[in-house]
């Protein structure tokens, strides 16, 4: 048997507090999804998977999460690549610009999008002034608005680890490829990009997982018209209330998230080995 180091006893109270405070309620929630009037049952899950409304919400949540992850990749990769090529001083400035939004409340940032994207917002007024559109384009209270807001909030979760991974790519490898006859295009696609893919994939999975459980931004920018899992849970817990169904949906979400988390771990480990 492995010996427990003496310092382990010091964290025991903390572990106990975490188990009682966080894990016990989670287990209770899991338990509740399996308990019905007549003991153990799968009836709540059957309800989730039989009612098309719930499945639709799950499907739209996954779709929004997927689009958000893809957009974060398309915006974040060039951003991280550009940051990498700056001088160290400008890298600091660039990173600060990426990180500063972290310090501003999500709520404030989300409401700010209403000012920017609303019917009388900066974007619509500019587009109309340019004569490109005749009437305001609805950016808000639909999936587009939710995705724009979510990408804005979650982009740093992709950019920061990706940038760190790109910095670790050995410049010598790129030079070596160059001396072997590769054009800049080939150097990028055959050497740099493959070496950055594990970090990129890990970042994308992280954004995907975070979007699955996102609440504030869909609630505000979706205006109640873009149902996502977290908002549906809010409905079941606060309005209905239907705790059994809420816990069944939560369990489904938890299982999917855990499965994705395993994928994330695999990817980050692949990155460490590279």
């Amino acid at each position, binding site marked *: 048997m492995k010996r427990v180091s003496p310092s382990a006893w010091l964290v025991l109270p903390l572990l106990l507090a975490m188990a009682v405070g966080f894990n016990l309620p989670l287990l209770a929630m899991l338990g509740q999804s399996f308990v019905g009037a007549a003991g153990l049952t799968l009836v709540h899950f059957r309800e989730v998977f039989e009612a098309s409304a719930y499945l639709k919400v799950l499907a739209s949540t996954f779709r929004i999460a997927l689009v958000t992850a893809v957009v974060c990749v398309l915006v974040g990769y060039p951003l991280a690549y550009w940051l990498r090529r700056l001088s160290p001083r400008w890298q600091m400035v660039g990173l600060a610009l990426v990180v500063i939004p972290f310090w501003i409340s999500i709520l404030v940032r989300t409401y700010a999008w209403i000012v920017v994207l609303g019917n009388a917002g900066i974007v619509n007024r500019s587009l109309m002034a340019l004569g490109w559109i005749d009437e305001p384009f609805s950016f808000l209270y639909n999936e587009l608005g939710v995705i724009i807001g979510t990408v804005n909030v979650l982009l740093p979760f992709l950019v920061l680890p990706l940038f760190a991974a790109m910095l670790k790519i050995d410049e010598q490898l790129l*030079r070596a490829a160059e001396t072997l006859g590769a054009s800049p295009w080939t150097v990028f696609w055959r050497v740099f990009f493959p070496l950055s893919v594990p970090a990129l994939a890990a970042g994308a999975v992280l954004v995907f997982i975070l979007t699955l459980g996102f609440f504030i931004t869909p609630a505000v920018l979706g205006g109640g018209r873009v149902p996502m899992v977290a908002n549906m849970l809010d409905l079941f817990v606060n309005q209905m209330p239907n705790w059994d169904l809420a816990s069944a949906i939560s369990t489904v979400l938890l299982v999917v998230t855990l499965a994705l988390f395993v994928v994330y771990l695999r990817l980050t480990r692949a990155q460490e080995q590279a």
Partner: protein
Amino acid sequence: MSTIELISVSKRFGDVTAVEATDLKIEQGEFVTLLGPSGSGKSTILSMIAGLTAPSSGHIKIGGRDVTHVRPAQRNLGLVFQSYALFPHMSVFDNIAFPLDIRGLRKADIAQRVGKALEQVRLTGLQARRPSQLSGGQQQRVALARALVFEPDILLLDEPMGALDKNLREEVQLELRQLQRELGVTTVLVTHDQEEALSLSTRLVVLDHGRVQQVDTPAGAYRRPSNRFVAGFIGTANLFDGQLLPGAGLRLAGGDVVPCGADSGLAGAVCLVVRPEHLQVLDATAPSGLDARVVEVVYFGQSARIHLQTTSGVAVVALADGLRAFPVPGQAVRLDWAAEHTWVMAA
């Protein structure tokens, strides 16, 4: 297969001159070593030949073609980095196939040429491995195979043995020399290891502080160093300052007269070079010689290194046959040498 020509090539980084105006011509098939301590500019010169660093002034020609402003990818040269710079996400096969693949060769040709390259560096059977699964010596050979497989005009080696342990290094040096001779590819090696430079190259370029100190064959640089730096950097040298006497002999500052070659063409104040293996350590009762005292004796088996100090305070090293009896530290001795084993440099 090509010549390399540097025409008053220099490199400045801000206020610092890394390489002063340098002229150098390397012939087809030569194995030239750029030898010098760190900061001597040797790596910068290699980097400029490779095209990874742009010279501040001057021109570089490869095979007669001016390549000063040509991208590294278009110079058709193989470069082995000190870190090997193998692509970690590719197998050994894909690493070696990379330069062929981007040149658009057919799959069958690539397989055949990679197979031959693997054979040349004795790595057949390891083509499916990742670089991280290879030993340092194997990685070095993959890097060499990758740099040679596309038959480059020149081969550039940037301290390729730096990361290997001593035994392995000697083995790899031998292989490298055989391979280079077999292929006849013009090769430039950068190293700070004088033993490596002496054993591998057909010619040496000794550098210090961004300036070429001497260009010569290994034996030439060892026997006829052009200045104190070269004498001290290649092998061990005993240096004696003095006045050249008419006829033969050198008068040291203390008044002693020691044997000295007469064919230097120099006069007045000079510096005499005597290699440790030519220095004879005699009894104090010997009829002639320079008086000295033994400081330390270091035994190596086949030989022993005797550290001495002359009465005028010059530190001297002698190499003695390991089978003979050695003097002991503190013992008074006399030093002597044959005039034909000396070399005279300007002071």
